[in-house]
């Protein structure tokens, strides 16, 4: 059973509020005068901090939602159930934050609907756009039971349980057709989904009484697709992206690192919300996540090393260039240090070790995405891009707004499970 939690809005929340207001003011200024008045972007560097941080890093960090949904509802690890609702809420708010960031970054945001009627199935940007639109909708649907529970709408929950599998099938099949434009693929994918649902309705497969499995599956499939497609965006620029990052398997690397970052964010946000809401920290749950995280870091590191070796990237990594330095920050802070922390018994036994390992993974992920989008890009003869403080301030404002919204919703809706007696105190 979940419950609302108490947490004081104090000085920290006040700071977040101020940062939000500053971000909003600067965003209004940008809409009134053009991107150039707040950003250092130029004709050689059309993408900057907003794409790297708000969009690439933001979406990867919101990956905790689909990872935990898969672990609990598909792979059946019930132990982590308490993390599902906070993670779904974080992911939902994360995607709304990212969409806000996107509206600031694109030059003509009032035309964003253009993507809904002008179909370009060969553009990775088109795929990301649609996937994000559909996944945000899925996250909203996944969050609805919280609202039903709060307002005791048992009837609505029943309708939701019945309709959502069909909605999920329609979304997935439409998307399959939109991106493949192939009747065969569409029919095969539709058949698999319909058979699965019939098996559940016919009692061949056991029904999950809490949530329609197909809705969870839709969330995981859309996430897998766009987390990797964010990497595909940069397959378009072999002529501009440094050898250190340009790889034909960028989509795979982006997907694995999104799983990694999503898990790290689960640890970070559980720890922080236990502090804020003065709840016990369920250390054994987080230790389980930490163990999984160390495996994902190992896999990611291995794929990264093999990829670099296969493409014979060597001297570039040892040069004294900003790119090489940025690469080593990503590897050492983002992968090696957290791995070391997670593999030492003392590191895992304490909540602090876990927390810091997760923080380092998050920092490493942000650095990686900014490296791909900004540091690794060569703009030729144009002045090297460094973010303007107003660009950073707008992103900070958006994140602050997201955190405030999270705190507010947790206080008013049943997001966290009732505390168990065995919970360790933090």
């Amino acid at each position: 059973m979940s419950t609302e939690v108490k947490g004081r809005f104090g000085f920290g929340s006040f700071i977040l509020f101020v940062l939000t207001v500053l971000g909003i003011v600067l965003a209004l200024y940008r809409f009134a005068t053009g991107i150039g008045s707040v950003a250092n972007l130029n004709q050689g560097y059309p993408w900057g901090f907003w794409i790297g941080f708000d969009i690439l890093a933001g979406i990867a960090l919101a990956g905790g939602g689909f990872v935990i949904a898969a672990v609990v509802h598909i792979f059946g690890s019930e132990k982590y159930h308490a993390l599902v609702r906070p993670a779904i809420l974080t992911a939902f708010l994360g995607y709304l934050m990212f969409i806000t960031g996107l509206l600031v970054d694109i030059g003509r945001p009032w035309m964003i609907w253009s993507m809904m009627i002008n179909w370009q199935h060969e553009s990775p940007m088109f795929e990301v756009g649609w996937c994000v639109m559909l996944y945000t909708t899925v996250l909203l649907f996944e969050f609805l039971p919280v609202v039903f529970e709060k307002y005791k709408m048992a009837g609505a929950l029943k309708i939701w349980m019945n309709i959502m599998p069909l909605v999920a099938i329609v979304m997935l099949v439409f998307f399959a057709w939109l991106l493949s434009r192939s009747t065969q693929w569409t029919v095969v994918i539709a058949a698999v989904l319909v058979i699965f649902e019939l098996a559940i309705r016919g009692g061949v497969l056991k029904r999950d009484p809490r949530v329609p499995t197909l809705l969870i599956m839709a969330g995981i499939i859309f996430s897998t697709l766009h987390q990797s497609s964010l990497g595909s965006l940069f397959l378009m620029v072999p002529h501009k992206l440094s050898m250190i990052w340009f790889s034909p398997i960028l989509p795979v690397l982006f997907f694995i690192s999104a799983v990694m970052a999503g898990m790290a964010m689960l640890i970070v946000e559980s720890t922080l919300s236990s502090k804020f809401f003065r709840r016990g920290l369920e250390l054994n749950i987080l230790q389980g996540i930490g163990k999984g995280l160390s495996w994902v870091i190992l896999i990611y590191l291995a794929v990264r090393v093999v990829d670099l070796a296969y493409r014979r990237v060597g001297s570039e990594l040892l040069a004294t260039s900003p790119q090489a330095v940025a690469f080593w920050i990503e590897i050492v802070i983002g992968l090696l240090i957290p791995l070391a922390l997670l593999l030492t018994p003392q590191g895992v036994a304490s909540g602090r070790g876990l927390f810091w390992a997760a923080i380092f993974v998050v920092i490493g992920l942000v650095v990686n995405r900014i490296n791909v989008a900004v540091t690794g890009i060569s703009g030729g003869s144009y002045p090297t891009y460094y973010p303007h403080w107003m660009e950073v301030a707008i992103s900070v404002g958006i994140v602050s707004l997201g955190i405030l919204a999270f705190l507010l919703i947790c206080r008013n809706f049943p997001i966290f499970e009732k505390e168990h007696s065995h919970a360790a105190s933090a």
Partner: protein
Amino acid sequence: MKALLIDTIRCTGCRSCQVACKEWNELPAEETSFFGGPGYQNPKDLSKNTWNLITFNEVKLNGRLKWIFGKKQCMHCLEPGCVSACPVGALEKTADGPVIYHKNICIGCRYCMLACPFQIPRFDFDSPNPYITKCRLCHDRQEMGEIPACAKACPTGAITFGEREDMVREAQRRIAENPDKYHHKVYGLEEAGGTCVLHISSVPFEEIGYITDIPNEPVCANVKPAMKAIPAVMLGAALILGASYKFRNRTRDEEPAAHG
């Protein structure tokens, strides 16, 4: 498919083509300053109001400093990166060759700029209602049976317009007839899969400021397989998730409570 052939040896740097481009496309003049760019080049760079630019390059040739003029404009690739990149189809490769821009459906994401290996599309960072701008190979003039304004205006024959095959043959003929005068390369023949603007010059192209480290396969070569994999990934994911659900569902029945 039509193409332009630019022979930099025949160019005298008069910039009639620059003026003709502005006139036809109704682009206002820019405020410029003497020596504001490299040498006497004016203006400094392509912009929302300058879609065609004659670049002034000072090159040392046989011990003497010489001006060699280049022409900077959209290359109208055979398989344009900008077209593959655009999420809404605001950029379109027409059958006749020009890559054109439909400004009204553009969302301003600037992915076309990132995708362009020649760094041609310009974005108006100073406007609250910005567009992408670039040369459209006088698509509208071609529809009326006319040749592009720059080719029409050129007084020295440095810009020739015609079928791409003919232009390629003409470029190769000029190089073959004067092998000492020309650098042995047709820029645009293979770059990024080939383009509808071809250049020949007396010196290697990197010496006159052209971007030369462009792969010969089309920009979208790496993207296509990734996009093709999408339905397969969907099917694979659905099968794996479905199977996992069935398998783990059984263990869940056996050990209901706190099973990790």
